[in-house]
């Protein structure tokens, strides 16, 4: 375990050695997450034409819905960036405020995704309809689950900032959760182009 050596010239989240180790560890964890999502994407693209004569993606995908979801998630990544910006300014209130906006946008995204899944299921596309829909729901569902976990996580971190203020420990948590949140945004961009745009073109 690390010594708690403070270094005043660094940003708050890098000031304790624990913070620095956690941040590096989380970057490596994101490397593993890239491998995880790559595998899911590979599965999706292998199974993309295997609809078994059942309902096709082009019949269900709607650009409007997907654009709203994309807008919500990309904006939340921006507001998450603003939260880290305010963190660097040591402004506790503004940090929490932007984190709340981030979480609300994320909840909006998850809400639309739940609506979308329910709608597809209603139209006859479920996990067991065909290999294509299995891979669709598992890829999208894994991303959606990650977003949901992120929401709970950021809420817990906000409670901790509220209680303890912006310390090296809490701020490294904010920074790490922001890395996670941006990562989910990047994954969504791949889903948007690889799954939805491609699915609508076909």
């Amino acid at each position, binding site marked *: 375990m690390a010594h708690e050596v403070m270094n005043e010239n660094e940003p708050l989240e890098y000031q304790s050695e624990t913070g620095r180790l956690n941040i590096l560890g989380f970057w*490596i964890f994101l*490397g*593993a997450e890239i491998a995880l999502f790559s595998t899911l994407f590979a599965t999706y693209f292998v199974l993309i034409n295997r609809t078994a004569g059942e309902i096709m993606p082009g019949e269900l995908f709607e650009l409007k819905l997907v654009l709203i979801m994309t807008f919500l998630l990309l904006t939340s990544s921006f507001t998450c960036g603003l939260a880290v910006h305010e963190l660097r300014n040591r402004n506790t209130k503004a940090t929490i405020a932007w984190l709340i906006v981030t979480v609300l946008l994320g909840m909006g995204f998850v809400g639309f995704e739940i609506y979308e899944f329910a709608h597809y299921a209603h139209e006859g596309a479920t996990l067991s309809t065909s290999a294509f829909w299995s891979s669709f729901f598992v890829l999208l569902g894994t991303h959606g689950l990650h977003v949901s976990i992120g929401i709970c996580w950021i809420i*817990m971190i906000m409670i901790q900032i509220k209680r303890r203020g912006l310390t090296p420990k809490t701020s490294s948590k904010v920074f790490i959760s922001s890395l996670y949140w941006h990562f989910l945004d990047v994954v969504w961009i791949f889903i948007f182009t690889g799954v939805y745009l491609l699915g609508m073109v076909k």
Partner: protein
Amino acid sequence: MNLRWDEFIITGDPLILGAQISIVLASIAIVGGLTYFKKWRWLWTEWITSVDHKRLGIMYILAALLMLFRGGVDALLMRTQLAAPNMELLNSQHYNEIFTTHGTIMIIFMAMPFLIGLINVVVPLQIGARDVAFPFLNNLSFWTFFVGAMLFNISFVIGGSPSAGWTSYMPLATNELSPGPGQNYYLLGLQIAGIGTLMTGINFIVTIFKMRTKGMTLFRMPMFTWTSLITMVIIVFAFPVLTVSLALMTFDRLFGTAFFTLHDGGMPMLWANLFWIWGHPEVYIVILPAFGIFSEIITTFARKTLFGYKAMIASVVLISVLSFLVWVHHFFTMGSGALVNSFFSITTMAIAIPTGVKIFNWLFTLYKGRIRFTVPMLWALAFIPNFVVGGVTGVMLAMAAADYQYHNTYFLVSHFHYVLIAGTVFACFAGLVFWYPKMFGHKLNERIGRWSFWIFVIGFNVCFFPQYFLGLDGMPRRVNTYLPEEGWFSLNALSTVGAFMMGIGFMIFAYNIYYSFRHSKRETSGDCWGTGRTLEWATSSAVPPFYNFAVLPEVKSIDAYWKTKEDGIETQQKKDYKKIHMPNNSALGFLMSVCLGIAGFGLVFHWYWIGLVGGILTLLCMTYRSFQEDDGYYVPVEKIQETEQKASAK
């Protein structure tokens, strides 16, 4: 799934009944012993909740030895069944279950944890660190591994074992062809253990990059640390693939998805690809640390610096890259086409080049060395020729065209046992004997050690060398019996004799642990072998105190400790201690893993409410951890002085 009680517990087979009785007796003995000697509190505070990397390492090794015993008994049952034509010890279903659990346990629950255990004990010491980067995570990693292993093992008596092979090829592993909960045990046991492995990977990458002592540059790191680092990188990129593959198959079996099925557009070959994209790098996850162990032992007992240190590192890195580019060689005969087979044939053979570099480096290290034939050195020396036999037959198998002849025969079985036993198992034994005094403060008896070495190594060759010829004679793998006319009797009988010799060798090894605990001389010097080269031999006592180094060493060259001895520098300054920051023990890793285990057990039997409860409890543990304010504690200077005095006075 509606299970009747008499289906829940496996009954009716005398072998399993024997196992059940012995499990009950062993459990009673353990619980009774702990109660009688009043050791429960000691077990809880000193071991179960410990975040000390050395203790966790020892627990990993203990668990791995237990699994080696179980996997070994599986092997002996199989060899007995095959010893003569038309044997009726095991029926075909039982045989399938046993070779499935043998393969899975040996790779996932024996080889990997054994090596991770040695890495845990040694790597922080070698880089001059006080602990790993994330000590709590280290404890959690161990317990998820252990719970995953136990979940897999109870399939033997509850519900039924998986029987689709350790590769679990689809569609064989579907609900239709593998009914019952057996395959679910495989999926969830591996999934839970895999989480721990991934966390270990992240933990040690950060540890090796960030926790090195002053002067320990990357190119002064001992070879074992290097191979561990590269192994952990492979883990981080390979294990998520396993996570996803297992999850997809779990969905297929539990929720009716169609990833790998034969209906609704599923693709069984996708499973084969995903499995081996993880599975082939996995082979290197269990061989690279072994290479590191042999490097340490050969330099120590040849009393020479490792020949071609940088070439060794380069070859390890190259092997790690190539390990991701060869997976299709596991199914050359499954219709990939000539071009694809050629590509993977060439990448597979290319791995022989960096491996050959390493073999020659070890030989040149031995050349003109002043060799001491200690037990660890014997294992290391035996490794070289035996591993070369395995490697050369591997190149034979790598030729796709020729592989059409050998595939799915005992030739292949012999090949991978030659590389995995001569590589990994020899390394585990060698490493355990080598670092044993670092863990327990006394050496293992050398005379008994030599007996177990010779019996095991001769038995190994008697067991597996005939299998090359059985394979060339056309004996397929995974058969539970054969006819007298096929002419495989004599070689099979010989092979079985060898297998039992290996079993005897292992029992002698285990006896040696007991014998040495009772009779071996306690070590007082840190450098127990007298020729230690790296920092783990520089700590003040034979059993390093929990903080490893009272004063962190400073490194000026490769083979740091050897250099200080040559220069005649006193390694431990006795004064100028400073207070040391250490982490607190935690029960949370254990509790969290148990909750995961409950969730897994529920899912095995499609009891979703148990799965849900286990999952929610796990999340609650994580929430508690997030809010926990645990900054560790400081060891005061007086305590350090006291500990150091006690250690040197022993």
